[in-house]
């Protein structure tokens, strides 16, 4: 809302500078977002196409306050509304314009009629008639005030309606009376198929739930939003019907939204206009018509208002105000604060005030609302700082938060950089075709770029890799923890499920070798990605991790290299995630030249794989361990998982742990064979193991490898 300071001063004798008023209003709850200088107003007026004279007159009203009005304060969408706040904050009197009141009925009622079919949507409609008008430009002072507040002058009649709207907050509309069929008004819902050409020249098809103003035959305005072009006041207009009405805010809001048409009128009606100010606004317009040389209105007003809104009474306890505000407040101070706002407050017992709330303040319904008014007029700067006194509460992070902190620690320790990428993404072109219906889509997406809720963290990680490669980084290790979504509904139904995922990406020599080449880690490969997953599981105390090739599980992974990808299993549940090389087609699409390795796991799968009982102490053996190697040669096609399973199946006594220390192919091995070196550590908790003990254990392992993996051993 633009408020010229000179117009404000018409209603409140404020002496302070515009800057000071702006600060006071802002600190009182009406945020002044800007101050327009005379020069700025002058140039804006010229840009609007007005004359030098009008531009000068508009500039003379400056500075102009640009006030942001919160949605609960519809009463401040007018110069008088803002003046009332200024009066309250500065404790100054508010002087309202003198308006000669009209008489209900009279000649006007003989010449026209108003019929309201939906009193909920339109609780009040007042019409006044003015005959023999001569349409001309309005006087310079009026055009100047309109321009200063951002309204373009049109003609004397329309300018008066806009002027009253700006001054009092009540939108008005003037119809060309002679173009209204039977010269009367019907307020009703639109009928299916009805079309109205609005003032902006657009023919709009109306829907049956929209409230319209009609004459005897057809719609002539969208109620509270915009008038129709056919009944517009123009240079040939002789007689007018002036509308002042009250419409239900939600009805106006829905209609405006459905038509995609937001106007100064709909903006105000959505934020509630005072129903009891309707006739006063019509009368004010008629007084202004006379003031600018138009004829006196036809005596009387047609005012349909069967259920007048009564003023509300709200009680406030001063002691409660003091407690909720946390500052000392006397009964007198509280009463004075409320009265300054135009509320009527009277003592009711020694702690309470009985407050009558005018209908222009529909936002005040509760004791707490009055307490806020007392507080802000008294000044929030008077509130001291205290800390809550009360029961001790146990603070702490959530279980999820604690788990994610641990997860992050492990991944950071692997040398990965945490990233946070978009949840709203474009459709990922490499989603498995059977999963396209699993996407959760934004219904009202304005752009494909933010139309899908991510199903996976991988596209985001690839984006980050792409961005950084573009900026010259060739090696990196990244991870992200975030929510992903999947549609679990069948047959077109949308049942979105949300879960947390952890994903990582490695590319290039993300462990840089520096100048010391010897012993340096190689460029990231499948083993790097898998090693990070293993490291994570080990760190979390997950006892079992299995990686199996893609065909071990239904579901395709077209975004991955088919030969360098594995489902990750943690225990007996279904797959917990995937680790592998990004398919060369995907890398090419993302313009990544190096091989990219990624992993992604469900966080709940990790959590569920941790033994719930927590760690238990096992006594440490005082006896020495024995370390032995075995070097089975096995056929190329036998995967290591089977070797691992064969060793475990042997149930060799005293086997503490074992691991693979070498994998060899080539001369002198025959084609189709690979040689593994496995290192076993044996230890007993009861005694020092003998050679016989260890040989027995090893021979069991050998036998198991021979039978299960077709292993051979060189003597």
């Amino acid at each position, binding site marked *: 809302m633009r408020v010229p300071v000179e117009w404000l001063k018409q209603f409140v004798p404020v002496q302070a500078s515009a800057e000071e008023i702006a600060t006071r209003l802002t600190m009182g709850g009406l945020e002044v977002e800007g101050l327009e200088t005379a020069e700025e107003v002058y140039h804006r007026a010229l840009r609007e196409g007005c004359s030098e004279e009008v531009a000068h007159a508009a500039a003379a009203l400056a500075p102009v306050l640009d006030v942001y009005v919160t949605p*609960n304060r519809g009463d401040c969408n007018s110069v008088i509304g803002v003046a009332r706040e200024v009066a309250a904050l500065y404790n100054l009197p508010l002087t309202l314009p003198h308006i000669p009141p009209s008489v209900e009925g009279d000649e006007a009622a003989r010449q026209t009629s108003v019929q309201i079919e939906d009193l909920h949507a339109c609780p009040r409609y007042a019409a006044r008639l003015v005959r023999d008008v001569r349409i001309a430009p309005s006087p310079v002072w009026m055009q100047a005030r309109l321009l200063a507040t951002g309204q373009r002058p049109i003609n004397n009649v329309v300018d008066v309606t806009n002027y009253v709207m700006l001054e009092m907050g009540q939108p008005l509309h003037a119809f060309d009376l002679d173009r209204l069929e039977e010269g009367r008004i019907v307020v009703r819902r639109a009928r299916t198929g009805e079309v109205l050409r609005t003032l902006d020249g657009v023919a709009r098809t109306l829907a049956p739930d929209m409230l319209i103003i009609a004459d005897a035959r057809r719609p002539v305005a969208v109620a509270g939003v915009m008038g129709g072009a056919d009944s517009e006041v123009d240079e040939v207009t002789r007689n007018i019907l002036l509308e002042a009405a009250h419409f239900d805010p939600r009805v106006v*809001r829905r209609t405006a939204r459905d038509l995609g048409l937001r106007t100064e009128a709909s903006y105000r009606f959505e934020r509630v206009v005072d129903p009891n100010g309707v006739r006063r606004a019509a009368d004010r317009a008629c007084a202004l018509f006379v003031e600018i040389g138009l004829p006196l209105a036809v005596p009387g007003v047609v005012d349909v208002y069967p259920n007048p809104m009564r003023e509300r009474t709200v009680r406030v306890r001063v002691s409660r105000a003091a*407690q909720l505000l*946390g500052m000392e407040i006397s009964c007198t101070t509280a009463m004075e604060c409320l009265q300054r706002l135009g509320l009527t407050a009277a003592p009711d017992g020694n702690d309470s005030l009985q407050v009558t709330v005018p209908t222009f303040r529909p936002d005040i319904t509760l004791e707490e609302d009055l307490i806020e008014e007392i507080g802000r007029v008294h000044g929030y700067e008077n509130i001291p700082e205290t800390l809550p006194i009360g029961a001790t509460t146990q603070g702490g992070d*959530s279980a999820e938060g604690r788990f994610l902190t641990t997860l992050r620690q492990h991944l950071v320790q692997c040398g990965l950089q*945490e990233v*946070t990428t978009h949840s709203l993404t474009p459709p990922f072109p490499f989603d498995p075709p059977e999963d396209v219906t699993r996407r959760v889509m934004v219904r009202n997406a304005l752009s494909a770029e*933010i139309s899908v809720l991510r199903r996976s963290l991988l596209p985001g990680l690839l984006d980050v890799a792409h961005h950084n490669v573009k900026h010259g980084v060739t090696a990196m290790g990244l991870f992200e923890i975030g929510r992903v979504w999947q549609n679990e509904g069948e047959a077109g139904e949308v049942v979105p499920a949300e879960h947390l995922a952890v994903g990582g990406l490695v590319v290039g020599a993300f462990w840089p070798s520096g100048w010391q080449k010897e012993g340096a880690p190689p460029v990231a490969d499948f083993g790097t990605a898998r090693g990070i997953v293993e490291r994570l599981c080990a760190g979390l105390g997950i006892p079992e991790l299995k990686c199996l090739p893609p065909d071990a599980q239904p579901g395709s992974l077209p975004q991955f290299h088919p030969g360098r990808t594995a489902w990750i299993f943690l225990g007996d549940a279904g797959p917990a995630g995937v680790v592998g090389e990004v398919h060369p087609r995907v890398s090419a699409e993302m313009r990544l030249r190096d091989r990219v390795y990624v992993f992604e796991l469900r966080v709940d799968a990790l959590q569920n794989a941790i033994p719930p009982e927590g760690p238990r102490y096992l006594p440490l053996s005082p006896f020495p361990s024995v370390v032995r190697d075995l070097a089975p040669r096995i056929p190329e096609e036998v995967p290591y998982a089977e070797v691992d399973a064969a060793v475990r199946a042997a149930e060799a006594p005293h086997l503490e742990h074992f691991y693979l220390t070498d994998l060899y192919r080539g001369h002198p091995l025959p084609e189709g064979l690979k040689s593994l070196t496995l290192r076993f550590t044996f230890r007993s908790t009861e005694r020092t193991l003998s050679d016989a003990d260890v040989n027995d254990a090893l021979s069991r392992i050998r036998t198991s490898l021979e039978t299960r993996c077709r292993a051979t051993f060189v003597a």
Partner: protein
Amino acid sequence: MADTIDQMVRDAEAAMEAARTTADLNAVETRYLGRNKGLNELRRSIGTLPPEERPAFGARLNAAVAALTEKLAARRAELEARELQERLAVERVDVTLPGRPMPVGRLHPLTQTADQIKRVLIGMGYEFVDGPELEDYAYNFAALNYPEDHPAMDEQNSFFVTDTRLLRTQTTALQGRVMAHRRPPFRIATIGRCFRYEAVDATHHHTFHQVDVFMVDRGIGMSDLKGTLGAFARALFGHDTQVRFRPDFFPFVEPGVDYAIAWKGRWLELGGAGLIHPSILRAYGIDTEQYSGFAFGLGVERIHMIQTGVNDLRLYLENDLRFLRQFGHFI
């Protein structure tokens, strides 16, 4: 025979003196003191002596062995010290060369800031609770006192995926979820991602992160809110930080304020706050005559921007490593 001992001792001493390395010395030791060698070889010839001479010869031999052993140890110590000295001299490296690079893992700056916020609030007795990012309309708006079709929602343009589910526009959506099954007193906080339909520029984004804090207890007033915000802001921004209230409107608080902190001579608006609206408390069966509470919210990005001088919101989701690597420090 005795002369032979003397001769052998003299030879051994000369050989020790001549030894240049511990390896040489070991050879000397073997030659003169080894099993059946040198002096020990002489010991075997003891049987050829007349019995009366044997004790004296044995004694002399033992004394010679003992003396030689002692001298050998001394000489060994000397040589070892010298050899160590030489080895250390040879092994010298250029310590001014860079070390083997270790990859540095870092948390995203928003995680670092969230952790910092958590530490402060947990210290003040707040319990963190997580809510879904894809939220029910009921919790995001209706439970927070937003009337249907109200202009207050204009500032919260939402991403809907069904009629009733949307990406939360504010972490405040958690309040209803918590109050539905908690009795006061409680102090709750949450941090998470929020979404609003906004054109993206340096200060606006459709995706951002928010902290929401709320508590209910007996006798809570605006001064408790101001004090708590003061303590919170001083923990984040330094001990002389001031807090200022300005009336503002949010449907879920009454009175509602916008709060700002004084930072390097300017007032910076941080977020919205107020006393939890009595209609909300009553909707969850909390007696507003007994209990009241406050709530405040703020942006995680905003805090980090103030602390570090970042001036473009978009950097947080862009993940340029040159940006991320600037924030690996303890905060």
